[in-house]
């Protein structure tokens, strides 16, 4: 008998819709739980023999967000901050109760610590940018070399500032201007700027790896961060074939940090070295799939079906 297939996502996620259309094409039943609208009933039983949960026997694709376990009336409660915190260990247990058949991970998304990832990448032999995390200018100046450029980006969370009538959100990378750095500051990650020949975006899910080359260097707007899109003449994005040794290291890396799906950013330097930048456990792949005509949606549907039918 087929296993139940649960898909956790957001209401308006286009990639989810695309995958579901393929599941429908293959006539496979599924249950979609939208984290922004549906409450999910669940249960965890712990005993001396074993721990069983509502998802231990299912195939789960956690595409976006996390299962909402709170009743609607509590979502506006002033206790919401506390209740959400209490929810996280539950989510972690649900995910861990079924590691082989739980694809994607909100826990990873939440705890996506760039420091751990950099260490893991270095451990498997991937090149990484020289990195420092500090809260004072003296240590920073001892670290930097003259005539080199340095960048800073967030450690885990995207910067977010909420004001009465507006908010500021940033998720990019900026070049450090040492003249503006104060003596003491909040703990910050600073990395050597890596010259790029091209940027490589890799999406992976289970054993399927898809790579795309982004030619961001012909355009001043996108040199530091390709997310500063140029809509008139978009960066060239084309299929890329990772050579076997780099691909093997990437596979070792994702298995070391225990991630079974996500997006990885690499840089190919003018000296033809691949440098690991970061991994996003719930990264978008639509852009990569469309640009390279990869049909990732269809492949995801097929690998879910394989699990539903044969596991």
């Amino acid at each position, binding site marked *: 008998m087929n296993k139940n297939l649960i898909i956790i996502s957001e209401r308006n996620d286009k990639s989810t819709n695309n995958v579901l259309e393929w599941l429908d094409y293959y006539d496979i039943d599924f249950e979609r739980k939208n984290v922004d609208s549906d409450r999910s009933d669940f249960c965890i039983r712990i005993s001396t023999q074993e721990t069983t949960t509502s998802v231990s026997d299912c195939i789960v694709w956690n595409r976006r967000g996390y299962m909402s376990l709170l009743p609607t009336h509590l979502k506006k409660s002033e206790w919401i901050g506390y209740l959400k915190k209490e929810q996280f260990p539950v989510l972690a247990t649900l995910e861990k109760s079924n590691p082989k058949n739980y694809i994607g991970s909100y826990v990873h998304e939440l705890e996506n610590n760039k420091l751990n990832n950099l260490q893991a990448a270095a451990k498997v032999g991937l090149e990484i940018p020289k990195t420092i995390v500090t809260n004072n200018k003296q240590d920073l100046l001892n670290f930097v070399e003259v005539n080199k450029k340095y960048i800073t980006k967030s450690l885990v969370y995207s910067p977010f500032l909420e004001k009465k009538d507006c908010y500021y959100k940033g998720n990019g990378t900026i070049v450090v201007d040492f003249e503006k750095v104060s003596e003491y500051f909040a703990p910050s990650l600073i990395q050597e700027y890596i010259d790029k020949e091209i940027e490589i975006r890799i999406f992976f899910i289970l054993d399927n790896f898809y790579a795309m080359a982004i030619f961001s260097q012909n355009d001043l707007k996108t040199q530091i961060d390709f997310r500063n899109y140029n809509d008139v003449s978009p960066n060239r994005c084309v*299929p890329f074939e990772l050579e076997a040794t780099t691909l093997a290291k990437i596979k070792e890396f994702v298995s070391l940090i225990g991630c079974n799906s996500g997006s990885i950013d690499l840089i190919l330097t003018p000296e033809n070295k691949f440098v690991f930048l970061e991994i996003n456990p719930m990264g978008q792949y639509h852009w990569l799939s469309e640009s390279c*005509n990869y049909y990732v949606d269809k492949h995801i549907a097929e690998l879910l079906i394989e699990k539903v039918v044969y596991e």
Partner: protein
Amino acid sequence: MSSIKKIKLFANCIPVKGAERSLICDLQRNRFDFIPNDLCEILILHEGKSTTEIKYIYKNLYDEIIDEYIDFLLEKEYVFFTHHPNWFPKMGLQWQDPFRINNAIIDVGENFEFEKILFELDSLKCKAVEFRFYDQKAIKIVNDILNYLQLKKSIISSVGFVLHYSEETTEHILNAIISNNSRVAYFVITNSPKNNFIKSLSNNVGYIIYTKDVVNDATHCGLITNMSLVINTKLFTESQHHNTCLNRKISIDKNGNIKNCPSMTESFGNIKDTTLEEALNHPNFKKYWHITKDQIEVCKDCEFRHICTDCRAYTENPEDQYSKPLKCGYDPYTNEWEEWSTNPLKQEAIEYYRLQGK
């Protein structure tokens, strides 16, 4: 050896060779450029080699021309140089779609039962539908259709309307419909006093085209001009495997006959007594779906063949399903666009289809 960089096309810039000249189709930026056939040959045969190697292959007789070509390709960002050409594979040209039918044309006639038709299209999961009206009382039906789709939460997510110009088709009225219905992709208003294009009010909603073209029945369709070319990955890849007009299409003409296209004669039953599903399962229903431009006479020599939407309803030789679209005025052997309807060689077919004066 590897210190010399090799030339490589960006994988979404694809050369297409024609009889007398070629195109580079830029599927990412949705544009194309004409290139001479000898440059097309260089790109097809010698991509992945260095400039020096390529010049040597041509016995160093054309060094200056080759330099000019490469300057052009670099300036347009069609190529780059790399030490590792094998890291940059060609883009796969597969085309796949999860729906058995993905577009429909419905001509609205006198006994139009829209609920029945929409119900069946919904069961087939057909996401894009175009409705064409040939008389002036249309807006009420347009609203009925849209209300029904909303009420039923239909999978039909993109609806286009072709209407006659009337006092009901003002920009104000149409935009009011568009802003209430995210399903509306476009209005095309024919028989208009002037041509006009009204942009979408915001992203993801419909636009309006007013056109002076006179449209009184399905015989207006099938026109191929340099304005109807479509440059994107979807059409380019579909064109490698399928017919770019009829693949996954179902139509109903104004008399209720279920067809591949309302302009064609072959009917697979009438909607009164045949379901769309039954018509789709008819052994002949899909016979045009696999006719590609590479198989069609003349088109197979045309540089525009993979950015063209084809027409199988009106062909130069009505007896031959591999014959060139009648209403295409382009000649790939002279590279000239001419008026199709006055071409003396097409008069017999024009008479056959009774297209005189249309």
